[in-house]
């Protein structure tokens, strides 16, 4: 079935990187558009958080709550994981399945570390009475940071499922595209975190 087949989608030339071949081009572009929608979603959450930042209703303020050491380590873990994910993509381009598996697994471990810290941060807050019902500020904090955290959780499962596919099928245009897309997602979450780090934690510590 190799001769002159017209596909549903526009044909792609083979000079492109593997992940852009077959219908990868279309799907990667679609994913970028999805990320645009995600940007709007997070922007709305950030705006909400900024509106409510001072509305502590007599409860704890951001200055009292946030722990510099904790959020610095979280940031370090997530930023590093973005880097290792990048190395995974690099190995994918070199057709090195083993390299992909190693770097992606490291990414997942770093992601899990980040999540663990976030969960312990949240449960600490709740244990001292700073829960979602305490004030509008805390509601906004938990929903913004929690939305990011749940994205990371989903991302970890997603990465693992793609990893299984790469291990089963090797690096084909399809698996390459999937790995590339989940990588985009992971980097995006990293960028969002950079904003959370500056807008929520750093600013919240001084103001």
């Amino acid at each position, binding site marked *: *079935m190799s001769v*002159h*087949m*017209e*596909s*549903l*989608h*526009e044909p792609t030339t083979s000079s492109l990187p593997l992940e852009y071949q077959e219908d990868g*081009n*279309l*799907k990667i*572009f*679609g994913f970028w*558009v*999805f990320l*645009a*929608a*995600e940007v*709007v*979603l997070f922007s*709305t*959450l950030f705006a*909400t958080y900024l*509106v*409510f930042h001072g*509305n*502590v*209703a007599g*409860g704890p303020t951001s200055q009292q709550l946030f722990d510099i050491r904790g959020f610095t380590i979280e940031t370090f873990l997530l930023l590093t994981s973005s880097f290792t994910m990048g190395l995974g993509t690099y190995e994918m381009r070199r057709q090195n399945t083993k390299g992909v598996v190693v770097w992606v697994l490291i990414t997942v471990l770093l992601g899990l570390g980040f999540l663990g810290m976030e969960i312990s941060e949240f449960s600490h807050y709740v244990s001292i009475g700073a829960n*979602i*019902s*305490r*004030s*509008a*500020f*805390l*509601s*906004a904090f*938990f*929903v913004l940071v929690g939305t990011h955290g749940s994205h990371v959780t*989903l991302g970890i*499962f*997603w990465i693992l*499922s*793609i990893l299984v*596919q790469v291990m089963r*099928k090797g690096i084909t245009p*399809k698996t390459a595209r*999937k790995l590339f897309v989940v990588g985009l997602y992971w980097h995006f979450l990293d960028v969002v975190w950079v904003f959370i780090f500056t807008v929520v934690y750093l600013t919240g510590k001084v103001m």
Partner: protein
Amino acid sequence: MLHSLLQLGDKYFMWNEGPMIWTSDVLIVLTSLGIIGVLTYLKRWNWLWKEWLTTVDHKKIGIMYIIAAFAMFFRGGMDGLIIRAQLAVPNNQFLNAEHYDQVFTTHGTIMILFMAMPFIIGLMNIAVPLQIGARDVAFPYLNALSFWLFFFAALLFNISFVIGGSPDAGWTSYAPLAGPFYDTGVGENYYLISLQITGIGTIATGINFLVTILKMRAPGMTLMKMPMFTWSILVTSIIIIFAFPVLTVTLALLMFDRLFGAQFFSVTHGGLPMMWANLFWIWGHPEVYIVILPAFGVFSEVVSTFSHKRLFGYKAMVVSMVAIAILSFTTWVHHFFTMGAGASVNSFFSFSTMLIAVPTGVKMFNWLFTMYKGRIQFTTSMLWALAFIPNFLIGGLTGVMLAVAPADYQYHNSYFLVAHFHYVLIAGTVFGVFSGLYYWWPKMFGHILNEKIGKWAFWIFMISFNMTFMPMYFLGLMGMTRRMYTYPAGLGWGPLNMIETIGALGMGLGFVVMVYDIVYSIRHPEKDLTGDPWDGRTLEWSIPSPAPEYNFAVIPEVKGIDAYWMMKHPKGQEPEPTKAVDKSKIRPIHMPNNSYRPFIISVAFFVAGFGFIWQWYWLGIPGLIVVVIGLFLRSFEYDDEHFISTEEIVQTETAAGRL
């Protein structure tokens, strides 16, 4: 035993509320049994599953959207009639205040999110891939998922009527009224969660069509050679992508307040009720352009086709749509001038709102100039488009009146406003989708809708529409406020209200006649054997009606605006036989497989939503887990495409008289 059963009935099914509920229960059970019976009797289950429930074909998905939109028009229209029955005479006690609140809430919500949106998405599903010479949308599977999410969200919203009670805080669901403190019960949860589910589907649709239009146009079709309807959908998709995530967040915040005790909109713990109004309308105003721009697109196609002229001012049309899209994000405060944002803020939003009248006016003139000196053909589709112009103008001009902030203190939340938005929503969106339905029907089903009955439906509906809503302007100026369940005698409001109610019945009649037209035309089809019943200008008319599964046997080459018209009338040459397909160019075609998963995932979403509405987390969380499992299983699916062989294409095209 019986006693405790009745108690459960009162708690979950509101049996203590009397005959209205009992009748609905009986009707729902009977209808469901009827549908199941008919399907079983005709042995159609397999057909339903294979041809429809699992389909990923954009044309079938479009048809399902439109069928569902019709059903929702019926439901929302019944609500409208109930409202009008209650308001027909002063001091009426047909409904009590509580029930009235529920009825206008479900009316507004259903009409906007479960009628207008799916009707438009249905038309774009049918027309856009055909207009750009594509074989499907970019992501057919995702498209099916969007549909089923909408479908089950609509179902979820509708069952609130008989299970637990409908939402009752208005379609705008303002906090703190809709918050946990003032609005106990599950009604508002139904609103929040079903809108959330359909909203996710809509975001996916926006992404899908943006990618489809940008990446899958036939060779030669540059952006500035696209049909105007496709342009309107491109712009609409962009608005969806930027507006709907705001709705997602807004609904989620109130859901957190209601289900998990957050304090976003409370007044006691630092929450801000005004935050809701702002967020809601940051989505809400763009939303009204999401439902109007595609209607503008339909009118552009219809007016040009039935004037047998090229659309006047193509570039101006595109530029004004883009301008409207940008401006639509800068006007949201005009929905609450009276909430006290201050003079300078109000002035800004007053001005930005009036600015939108400029590009809209440009479009109006372009349609008029398109008709100027054209050979106008008064088909049913064209009648809807023609009626749109003066009626929408009334809605638009009164909109500019409302935009004058100080004057708005007089009309705000009065029947003047109710009249305004029905004049734009009905004369714009509803006339638009009806026009599009008559226009594209032959392409969907291979036969034309009966024109004579269609014109009856048009005249009855259009005249009754004016009878219903024109008096509302005057009632508003006389002081009648919206959302009031009854009014005293002696204010002089009685006669106008009675006229409105009679008008509403007329609209109901018009709708019934249109449904009759559909039924009649299915039984006595006037077949469209040419594929081009209107002497059309764009590519969808170059293929047989109904369109074959793969749409285009050979992807066409586009040379300019109105691509098909140019093929039919080549400059300086003898007209070539445009219908014939060049057999030597036919190749096997790659098409996506059907899939049951979008359906199943959406059922799981429905179950999860129901669980969260009732705060039954034992049901809600497993439901969500099934959704996630479904998505992961999809990721592991590799063999999801099939081929249509050359022989099969040749056979189909021969049968359609193209070879």
